[in-house]
């Protein structure tokens, strides 16, 4: 399989081989080999769980830097709504947007604008009678990838729209291209991102040939600089998205904006996997829509944010109820309409399945491997301790069947082997060659 681009990487020197990440990874993509974690590229969905749980901070996300702005003449920042949750409610969104301008961006275009458009599109989509139900949100790229690799049979449940950030990027870019003296090559469009999944989506777009986004800068990376320049005072007045789009930062926000009520809201990639399993068994057909987000709490819980997710959630909620009251006064009303161009209908291509579980291209061989795995699994202790470097006993059995590990990687099997060997040694040590063995009685003697 061709190497895929991934934002989640491992800093080898920092990895202690502690196995924490292997057990958190929802696709069992990580193994410890030679004392270091290794990520299997085809399995990784860039959810960032491993970043969150690595005690040594050995897992990082590669994102772009502010310095990369220099490569372009005109730079646009696309702040994710979750950015606003990093600041106290007394700092208005306008102040945060102005802060981004002070850091060197020429323009700011809120991702929340894109979210408003996508919300309307989903609302229309759910009115259709001919779509497989439940429809599933495609806004979180980690979830789209989870479906591609582990639940490929559910791909046609995904809402067939770009994520809000891609919609926002297309609009921001189109606007900039109208400006005198600018060509597509000298416009940089930068997503201020809460997560590595979206970083990856820039380099490996889901459902589009090429992304309109130039790069992504982690919220955690830009935050220190932004904090210095953001002030609550006098700001450039800029157009702003309404509370509808901004609400997407928190789980449940998308559903709110779509305005559907027969909906499930599921967040945290492990819970999401459980619910997808149910959908795969044909349950939940009477549900219209499932909002699914890989991070607990939604994007405010993204691994590249700085603020504690409960704090951020509280702030976002306050911010949104304030905006609900104030927005209409300033004429910031939710969108009521969108065009096919805005939604990017033309550039859309189908999301392809990328199943990862197949053991062998030859089905008979795969069957033999399954039988072998079953036998192996029966002789493993079943403690799922992970000390072997595979996430659980079953995964080790699979690794052994694939020739990637051996029985003695299990510490308990190893100990048993050592003990058996030790007994055998003691046994052997007791044995003496006949000339020295005075106690031994020989039947032959009697016979003589």
């Amino acid at each position, binding site marked *: 399989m061709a190497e895929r681009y991934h934002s989640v990487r491992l800093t080898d020197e920092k990895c202690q081989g502690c196995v924490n990440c292997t057990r958190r990874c929802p696709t069992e993509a990580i193994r410890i080999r030679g004392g270091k974690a290794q990520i299997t590229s085809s399995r990784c969905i860039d959810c960032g769980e491993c970043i969150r749980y690595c005690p040594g901070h050995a897992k990082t996300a590669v994102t772009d830097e502010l310095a990369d702005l220099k490569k372009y003449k005109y730079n646009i920042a696309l702040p994710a709504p979750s950015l606003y949750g990093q600041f106290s409610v007394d700092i208005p969104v306008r102040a945060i947007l102005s802060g981004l301008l002070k850091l060197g961006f020429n323009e700011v275009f809120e991702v929340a604008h894109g979210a408003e458009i996508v919300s309307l599109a989903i609302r229309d989509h759910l009115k259709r009678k001919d779509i497989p139900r439940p429809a599933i949100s495609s806004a979180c790229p980690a979830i789209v990838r989870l479906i591609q690799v582990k639940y490929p049979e559910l791909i046609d449940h995904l809402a067939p729209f770009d994520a809000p950030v891609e919609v926002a990027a297309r609009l921001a870019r189109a606007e900039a291209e109208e400006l005198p003296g600018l060509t597509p090559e000298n416009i940089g469009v930068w997503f201020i991102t809460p997560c590595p999944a979206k970083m990856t989506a820039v380099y490996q777009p889901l459902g589009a040939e090429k992304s309109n986004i130039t790069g992504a800068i982690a919220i955690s990376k830009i935050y220190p600089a932004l904090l210095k320049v953001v002030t609550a005072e006098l700001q450039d007045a800029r157009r702003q998205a309404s509370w509808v789009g901004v609400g997407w930062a928190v789980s449940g926000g998308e559903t709110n904006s779509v305005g559907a009520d027969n909906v499930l809201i599921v967040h945290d990639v492990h819970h999401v996997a459980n619910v997808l399993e*149910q959908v795969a068994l044909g349950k939940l057909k009477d549900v219209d829509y499932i909002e699914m987000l890989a991070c607990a709490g939604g994007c405010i819980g993204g691994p590249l944010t700085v603020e504690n997710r409960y704090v951020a959630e509280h702030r976002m909620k306050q911010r949104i109820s304030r905006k609900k009251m104030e927005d209409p006064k300033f004429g910031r009303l939710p969108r009521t309409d969108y065009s096919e161009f805005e939604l990017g209908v033309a550039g859309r291509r189908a999301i392809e399945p990328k199943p990862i579980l197949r053991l*062998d291209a030859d*089905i008979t061989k795969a069957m033999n491997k399954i039988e072998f795995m079953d036998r192996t699994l029966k002789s493993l202790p079943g403690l799922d301790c992970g000390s072997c470097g595979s996430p659980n006993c079953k995964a080790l059995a699979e690794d052994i069947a694939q020739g990637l590990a051996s029985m003695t990687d299990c510490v308990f099997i190893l100990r048993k082997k050592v003990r058996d060997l030790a007994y055998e040694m003691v046994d052997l040590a007791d044995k003496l060659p006949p000339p020295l063995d005075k106690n031994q009685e020989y039947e032959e003697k009697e016979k003589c």
Partner: protein
Amino acid sequence: MTPEQGLTLEFALTGADFNSAGEASSKIKRTLQLLGIRPDIIRRIAISAYEAEMNVIIHAYRGSIRADIHPNRTEVTVADEGPGIPDIELAMKEGYSTAPDYVREMGFGAGMGLPNMARCTDKFDIKTEAGVGTQLSMTIYH
């Protein structure tokens, strides 16, 4: 193993044991994924196995589900000891359900069972005897 024998997975089912409902079907599905069977076919097998599994849990005292996986097909056999189905023709109509109210409140037994299974499978056969039990066999070609 020879290709003709295929792989066999078998699970015991207990009536009213909603805690493990769906586990057998999930395991069958997972095995099919390991074999690299096409996703849309896996989906049909998983859905029919799940419906059958649930029927045993909802209506019967005990039973078993068995999947015989061959390179070109999967056969799912579900047998139970239970009340049987009094009127098969009626049970094959969409929307018909004999599930007790408390089960329906849990969101199961909406009455899509048998017709759904028949639709998802290439061969569908059902034998039932009132007061004794039901036996289902379904085949889906890969």
